[in-house]
């Protein structure tokens, strides 16, 4: 096929390219997407799927091993583990969604302003980020929980703000590349205002790295959020949050292993799926990064 053939059917080629892009997700990527899709069911309607009330205390049913009546067993209050995991999906996933949204909402304007206007504002933002990034891993989230107090909403804020510095750096570096492009110069030359340039030319071009970091960041948010729950600083009992459930079941690991193991394995599976999906999406969205 020569160059002339290519230029005749642009619409078809775009569609084909998109499909090729999706095919590049690979088996693991599709499997992970499947797991994430599966998660959206209990997310929307947990009461339809959950066989029991997740918080109802049933003294007759305590410490029951996995059986046909209770597929994943029951805990020390006789609560059905499967029902709690299903309802916990909503808690853990909303923790991920809210905190990632918060990270993006904070980092997008800050990163764009720092990268576009540069100068003193950028210097101040960057030094501030240096300071915030001196708190490794979960530590910044812990500092915020220490200030706001334990609880699910505060954990969401803590994870969202705690991860925002990393997002801001990504946005800023993307803007640094975009602002040097000819189309920005052209927009300035025809007299477009900054706000128009930022909205129409800069923002659409930095969205892609934001999507990539948000996908990976979702997995990180689930890990940190459930870790806070495990430490007793996130969602408080009897809320069925996965990390909190692991912490509750930890004491019974020797005899009633299912109380901690099933919620724990759920977290592991979800984060694994999100990570694989994040890697696959990054490969599709940004072919330059492919190994």
């Amino acid at each position, binding site marked *: 096929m020569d160059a002339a053939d290519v230029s005749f059917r642009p619409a078809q080629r775009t569609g084909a390219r998109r499909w090729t892009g999706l095919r590049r997700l690979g088996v693991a990527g599709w499997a992970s997407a499947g797991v994430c899709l599966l998660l959206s069911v209990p997310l929307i309607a947990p009461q339809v799927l959950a066989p029991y009330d997740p918080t109802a205390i049933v003294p007759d049913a305590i410490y029951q091993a996995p059986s046909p009546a209770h597929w994943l067993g029951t805990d020390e209050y006789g609560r059905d583990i499967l029902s709690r995991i299903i309802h916990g999906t909503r808690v853990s996933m909303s923790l991920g969604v809210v905190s990632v949204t918060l990270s993006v909402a904070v980092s997008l304007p800050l990163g764009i302003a720092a990268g576009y206007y540069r100068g003193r504002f950028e210097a101040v933002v960057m030094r501030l980020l240096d300071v915030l990034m001196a708190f490794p891993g979960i530590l910044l989230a812990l500092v915020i929980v220490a200030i706001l107090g334990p609880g699910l909403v505060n954990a969401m804020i803590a994870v969202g703000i705690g991860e925002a510095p990393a997002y801001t750096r990504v946005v800023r570096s993307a803007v640094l590349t975009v602002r040097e492009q000819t189309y920005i110069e052209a927009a300035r030359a025809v007299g477009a205002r900054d706000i128009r340039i930022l909205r129409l030319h800069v923002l659409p071009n930095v969205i892609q790295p934001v999507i990539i970091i948000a996908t990976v960041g979702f997995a990180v948010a689930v890990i940190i959020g459930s870790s806070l729950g495990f430490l007793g600083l996130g969602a408080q009992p009897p809320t069925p949050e996965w990390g909190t459930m692991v912490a509750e079941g930890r004491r019974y*690991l020797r005899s009633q292993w299912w109380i901690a193991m099933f919620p724990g394995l759920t*977290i592991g599976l979800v984060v694994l799926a999100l990570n694989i999906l994040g890697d696959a999406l990054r490969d599709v969205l940004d072919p330059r990064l492919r190994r």
Partner: protein
Amino acid sequence: MGRYVLFRVLQSSLVITGVLVMVFMMLHLVPGDPVQVLFGDAPVPKEQVEAVRRQLGLDRPLSQQFVVYISHVARGDLGRSLKTNRPVAADIARALPFTVQLAVAAMALAAAGGIVLGIISAVSRHSWVDGGVTSLALLGISLPSFLTGLLLIWLFSIKLDWVPITGQGSWRHLILPAMTLGWYAGAILARLVRGGMLEILRQDYVMTARAKGLAERVVLVRHALRNALIPVITLAGIQFGTLLGGAVVVETVFARDGIGRLLVNGILQKDFPQVQGAVLIVACAYSLTNLLADLSYGFLDPRIHYA
């Protein structure tokens, strides 16, 4: 080089100053009256509230409080715990060796495991061994450390009864926490070594080494690995700092004493001086290990010149 060292040292001092300001401001950022928050809903006599306010220095102007705070920190005084009334610095000094011991053991396991598995994975590229190592690394990056810890406890302490579940004192108590903490860092290092080795094994000088008839082992260790290790050492330095942060969760899982447990207990008991002290130490240690890791780069690789 000298200018770069000076620049990085200055930059780190700026960061540590920022950390000091942030840690100082923690109590002031608490929504509402911080002293009242410390007491919770319990009815407390006004005199007691005022006494705690004085103990924390909150009755003075903010600027004065900051100067006092800095001068105390400079003298190694991190205040007194609101719960035990013991000096926070003494509690941290008691807990720190346990955390450092855990982080060093975790780093040793991560470096040994990461480098060996990274080489094996690169040498047997696209085989089932490579697949196994890559999956192990992905698991290490994906699983939260409290889950890894529980899985290891379940397998090695409960099912196999090889090592004690919790506590500290001997190397047998250290092995599972170190594995839990080191798995993530090991996974990152294994990925890096694998990538570096694959890149280097394609270089001309490796082909030359093979062409002149050197044994494959010599080519791998003397020619490829030595070059692949340079970024690994720097990353290991950064990871070491991250391990200090990760210790927070691992110490709770294994009920070990340490800075992390001090911090979590401090947050749960609203013991602000203890939280501030622990946060300050971990953040400063992290900044310093990052600085050392950055500077080591220039020393390890003579090809690198800093402008």
